[in-house]
């Protein structure tokens, strides 16, 4: 290598291959040195010694000794520290009256009321007053009319059929339970998000404090919410609701802040010139003018709620999620698929309806009789009346009896068996060769990677990209993981996500490039991405378990399926977003289509594509935790499931934070690189 490198290096200028590949080369050299000289490192520099992670002079101990001598904490690891806080919150009585847990349980108790109401309304009826639930035909019709009102008859038909599927295939109660959870949690999450956003607009200080918390919340995996909730609320349906609200509110708060700040300056000035007071400015000008942006938040909250409601099955939330979880655990794949389809249909219906709501523009009405001014309200009223009458005459229109529902589970099972046996041979290649030649070497590398080297490399990247501030931030994240005592497990998780992200990129990048070349392809791929992205992540376990059973490959494949979407999307969006004038300039310079792609579009779109990879990493970290359910590696996911089984809230939170910090490390570094590169290209 040195023989050829010598002369080439002598001409190395800014344009040479060697110059352009300088950072990959540095990294490669680093890896070579690491493999050669790892043995010379002292043990403490390779894995964090137990002495460090279990004998921490933690500030909380001092604090608790001084203020809560009753609380004795055994051990002194970070997990103990977290559990110390948890037990204070659980047991210490404020003013000797009630504990923090009493407060959280009290709040959770409040949510039972709207939950019961919506379930009575949709499923069980109000037994106290002998009012039956809404007949399924009415629910179906109303969903259709809502879709018709929001966009047109096409959406109405879609919404109706999704609801009707649940009734016909015997998923009515499960589906309506899930739906009522979403209908209760989404408005609460939206309201809290709005309030936080408004407060942030009012007080800069509050915003400054809020933003990092929201960032952290958005990178906490689902279980980071679930386990503490179990301790402070308990297992069950309402605990699922609380976890869902907490999980879904950060995007709303962020979008509220952006939306309220993004109102056109002139519109605000028009408000001031009209003589608005501050209060009038907020309620009559800012919030209404920000409506389109806020509605995007509403759509996101609804989808986040649905995803979390499904996963809340792990802590005992009822509905489609728990059915799916049970079917997967007992490997009833046909039944699992049927529940999965119900979830998917619900996701599609909710997404399209809320999207139509956010895109709906006001249209003026002409005067006339009530039915012509309000045709949709009239139709809804008529449909409800007709449906209730029908249900009165024909009970099956009110509640479909079980024997009248259909199941295609046996057929699905047949199809699954067919697909699996057809794919078994082709896929055996993956099963046989991936582990020994790819997975195990990479895992060994990550497991044996000294933490000092990882910390140093990340810190160096941070320093190069964003100065000492970024280096310190990234160093803190990784330092936390080192001291947490879960370094090896975190590295196994890193390895799983690393492999999955590499596969996602290898697969997703060409798809994105392909999709960007023709309008038609872009439309098709955009539609698929939009649709797949609305599915709750849990759904993706079904096909993976079908094809690969349980194990490491399944865990990785689940991540790949779920996390490929962002890299595909950012690739075609980035490539197509290149300013038209630059493409025209390239065409008039005589570029061939492939030259335009590789010499003009690609360099300009590359920062955007990297942001897609960043998103893929975040998605991957979320999915690696959920897929831990089928994985069986000694990673953070396994530990978090163990923590959940033991109701160890402190440990659960600690492990979730480790995942969040892994994600934030990648996110901060890639974002810093992308924004710097965009600035260099004059795109920022």
């Amino acid at each position, binding site marked *: 290598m040195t023989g050829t490198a010598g002369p080439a290096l002598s001409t190395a200028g800014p344009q040479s291959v060697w110059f352009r590949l300088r950072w990959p080369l540095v990294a490669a050299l680093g890896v070579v040195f690491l493999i050669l000289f790892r043995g010379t490192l002292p043990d403490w520099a390779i894995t964090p010694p137990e002495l460090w992670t279990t004998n921490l002079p933690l500030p909380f101990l001092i604090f608790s000794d001084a203020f809560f001598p009753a609380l004795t904490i055994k051990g002194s690891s970070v997990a103990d520290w977290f559990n110390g806080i948890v037990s204070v919150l659980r047991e210490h009585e404020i003013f000797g009256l009630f504990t923090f847990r009493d407060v959280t349980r009290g709040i959770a108790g409040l949510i039972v009321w709207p939950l019961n109401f919506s379930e009575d309304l949709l499923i069980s009826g109000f037994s106290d007053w002998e009012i039956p639930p809404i007949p399924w035909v009415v629910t179906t019709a109303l969903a259709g009319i809502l879709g018709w009102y929001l966009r047109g008859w096409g959406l109405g038909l879609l919404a109706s059929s999704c609801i009707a599927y649940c009734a016909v295939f015997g998923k009515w109660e499960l589906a309506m339970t899930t739906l009522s959870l979403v209908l209760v949690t989404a408005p609460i999450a939206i309201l809290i998000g709005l309030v936080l956003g408004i407060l942030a607009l009012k007080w800069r200080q509050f915003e400054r404090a809020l933003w990092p918390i929201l960032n952290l919340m958005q990178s906490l995996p689902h279980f980071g919410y679930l386990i503490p909730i179990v301790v402070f609320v308990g297992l069950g349906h309402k605990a699922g609701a609380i976890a869902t609200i907490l999980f879904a509110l950060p995007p709303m708060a962020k979008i509220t802040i952006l939306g309220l700040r993004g109102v*056109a300056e*002139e*519109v605000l*000035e*028009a408000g*001031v*010139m*009209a*003589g*608005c*007071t501050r209060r*009038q400015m907020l309620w*009559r*000008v800012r919030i*209404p*003018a920000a*409506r389109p942006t806020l509605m995007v938040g509403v759509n996101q909250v609804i989808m986040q709620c649905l995803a979390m409601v499904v996963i809340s099955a792990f802590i005992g939330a009822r509905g489609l999620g728990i059915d799916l979880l049970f079917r997967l655990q007992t490997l009833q794949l046909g039944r699992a698929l049927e529940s999965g389809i119900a979830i998917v249909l619900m996701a599609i219906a909710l997404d399209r309806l809320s999207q139509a709501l956010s895109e709906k*523009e*006001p*249209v*003026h*009405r*002409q005067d006339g009789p009530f039915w012509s001014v309000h045709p949709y309200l009239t139709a809804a009223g008529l449909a409800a009346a007709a449906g209730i009458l029908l249900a009165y005459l024909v009970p099956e229109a009110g509640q479909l009896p079980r024997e009248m529902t259909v199941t295609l589970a046996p057929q699905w099972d047949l199809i699954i068996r067919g697909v699996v046996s057809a794919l078994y041979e082709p896929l055996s290649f993956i099963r046989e060769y991936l582990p020994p030649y790819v997975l195990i070497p990479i895992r060994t590398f990550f497991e044996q990677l000294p933490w000092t080297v990882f910390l140093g490399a990340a810190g160096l990247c941070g320093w190069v990209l964003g100065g000492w501030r970024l280096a310190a931030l990234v160093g803190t994240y990784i330092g936390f993981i080192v001291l947490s005592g879960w370094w090896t497990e975190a590295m196994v998780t890193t390895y799983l996500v690393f492999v999955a992200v590499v596969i996602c990129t290898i697969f997703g990048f060409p798809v994105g490039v392909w999709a960007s070349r023709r309008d038609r392809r872009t439309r098709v791929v955009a539609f698929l991405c939009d649709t797949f992205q609305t599915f709750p992540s849990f759904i993706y376990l079904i096909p993976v378990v079908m094809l690969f059973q349980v194990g490491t490959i399944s865990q990785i494949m689940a991540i790949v399926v779920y996390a490929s979407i962002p890299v595909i999307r950012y690739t075609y969006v980035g490539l197509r977003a290149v300013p038209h004038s630059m493409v025209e300039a390239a065409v008039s310079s005589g570029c061939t289509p492939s030259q335009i792609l590789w010499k003009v579009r690609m360099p300009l779109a590359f920062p955007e594509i990297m942001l897609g990879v960043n998103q893929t990493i975040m998605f991957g970290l979320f999915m690696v935790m959920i897929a831990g359910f089928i994985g069986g590696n000694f990673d953070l996911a396994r530990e978090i499931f163990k923590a959940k089984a033991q109701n160890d809230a402190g440990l659960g939170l600690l492990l979730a934070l480790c995942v969040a910090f892994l994600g934030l490390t990648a996110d901060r570094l890639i974002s810093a690189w992308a924004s710097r590169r965009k600035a260099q290209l004059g795109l920022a």
Partner: protein
Amino acid sequence: MAEPVILCRGLWKIYGSEPAKFLARHDSNPSPEQFEQSGHIGAVQDVNLDVQPGEILVIMGLSGSGKSTIVRCLSRLIEPTHGQVIFQGTDLLKATEKEMIEIRRHKMGMVFQNFALLPHRTVIDNVAFPLEVQGVDRAQRHERALEIIELVGLKGREKYYPRELSGGQQQRVGIARSLAVEPDVWFLDEPFSALDPLIRREMQDEFLRLQNLLHKTIIFITHDFDETVRLADRIAIMYEGRIVQLGTAEELVTKPATDYVRAFTRDIPKAKLLTVASVMGPANGARGDGPAVTDDQRIGDVAGLVIGQDKPVTVVNGSGNVVGSLTRQQVVDALFADRS
């Protein structure tokens, strides 16, 4: 001269890290070099202005000259750094937030470049908005709004939403909204700049028609000199935050204060602007029997006549007395000077 509606004295708006201290440090008159060194930007610099009742004062300048900032300082949408703005005898810069709200509610109206309509409200609710925030009840404010909507020619569109209207129609709504409270002073910030040239022309006519009915005191911002000449009673030309000249269009053309003003006014059609009085020479003898022109006629209107004569044409004033004479050469110079 009547009491000015708005009187503005030594007005400064400076952007930067410590604008007020910076201004005080340099005796309220920092030099361009001092601005550059300290990183401050003087958006409005030492502006003195008086706006007479019922006049249309056009503030004209290129983008970045500070014209929009001035109008926002006058209404305190932007807090000036230093100076005085006397509005009908009260110093606006000393008014409390509450007093400012009252003043804006009853005495000021403003039209914006990009219309700034509230997208979620119908035409009638947009127009009635200033009344609504005052607490006027619904029937009364809708009645008033309908009146103005009719005045601006949008009758029948009351229930439309802004996005259902064309640009010109949207700006009519903006105009109607700004007039809803019957303001004493009317600010228009480049109201027609976002419109197509043909629509712009139509809206200018509409604006003049409204002003003939309403006789408001108007401050009109624009970067379009043709528009300025069409609409203005008086013109203030701005350059780098300062008003470099304030006067009638004819004064700007005949007596430009700086080279900047001269360059700016060079290409305007003088035929329609200059009066005979500003071009003519001294009277030479009594009125002959040839044709005569009056001193307030525009050059463009008499050019054909004068150029057709071999001798100077007599100029008379309104009462028929001879006040000067006009030669062929004078007309040609006036029309084509600065063109070579």
